[in-house]
């Protein structure tokens, strides 16, 4: 994780410039919709096409996790996504489900950990790698929330340095 874990929640200290919130059923058909929506909203931030592709990837991973692990592929679950633009250049994505939650969060966050041997266990690795901050909160029986944050200005400066 590149961001400091001891920093306060971004939303509580930074001004939200704009946000969208939407919910949908836990169906694989909706993953593409979810990542396209977030990508379209994120394009308000001055970021590159590569950045947009990475945003699509992390949303896809978080939503797939909710469908597979949170709801055990049952289509009746609810997934809620909130995307916020903070201080013009920072994007915050929160993906929440009300599924079974993660029993052992520490184990689940280990690279290449997977509860299903046919999958690669790369979901959280991608989310951590492509975002500045990742925070997962989960309560068994209640659900899981993944908060992802990334600031885009710093990256541009690096790119043009």
């Amino acid at each position: 994780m590149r961001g400091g874990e001891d920093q306060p929640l971004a939303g509580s200290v930074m001004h939200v410039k704009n946000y969208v919130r939407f919910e949908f059923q836990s169906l694989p058909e909706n993953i593409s919709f979810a990542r396209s929506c977030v990508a379209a909203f994120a394009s308000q931030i001055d970021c590159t096409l590569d950045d947009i592709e990475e945003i699509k990837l992390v949303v896809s991973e978080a939503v797939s996790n909710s469908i597979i692990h949170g709801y055990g592929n049952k289509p009746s679950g609810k997934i809620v996504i909130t995307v916020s633009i903070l201080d013009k250049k920072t994007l915050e994505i929160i993906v929440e489900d009300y599924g079974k939650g993660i029993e052992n969060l520490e184990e689940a966050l280990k690279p290449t950990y997977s509860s299903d041997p046919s999958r690669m266990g790369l979901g959280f690795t991608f989310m951590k790698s492509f975002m500045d901050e990742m925070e997962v909160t989960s309560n068994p029986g209640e659900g899981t929330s993944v908060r992802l944050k990334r600031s885009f200005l710093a990256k541009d400066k690096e790119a043009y340095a």
Partner: protein
Amino acid sequence: MDVEIKQVRNTLVVRVQGELDMLIAGKMRKEIDEKLKDDKIKNLIVNLEKVTFIDSSGLGVLIGRYKKIAANGGRMYIVGAKSPVDKILFFSGINKLVPMYNSEQDIINI
């Protein structure tokens, strides 16, 4: 439509189109595994030329088919992966197991 499969001698050629997420990955896994029941098929070529997105569900299907093919003594190749798909394939390290080529023709020329 999203997954087109043809057989050339003992090789299965799979051409995928669109966004390789959980939805298409499931379909692809089912269709390839159905064909792999035929013992004559040894090798697998997956053409990702028309794939514009891949996530860990898509990678999972590729790695799973690689394990099956390798266990049977066959070879698997990935061809035509372009940005941003190639970047994700390299990031995952799958290229260390499954050789990647620009086109199906490149494999015929090996």
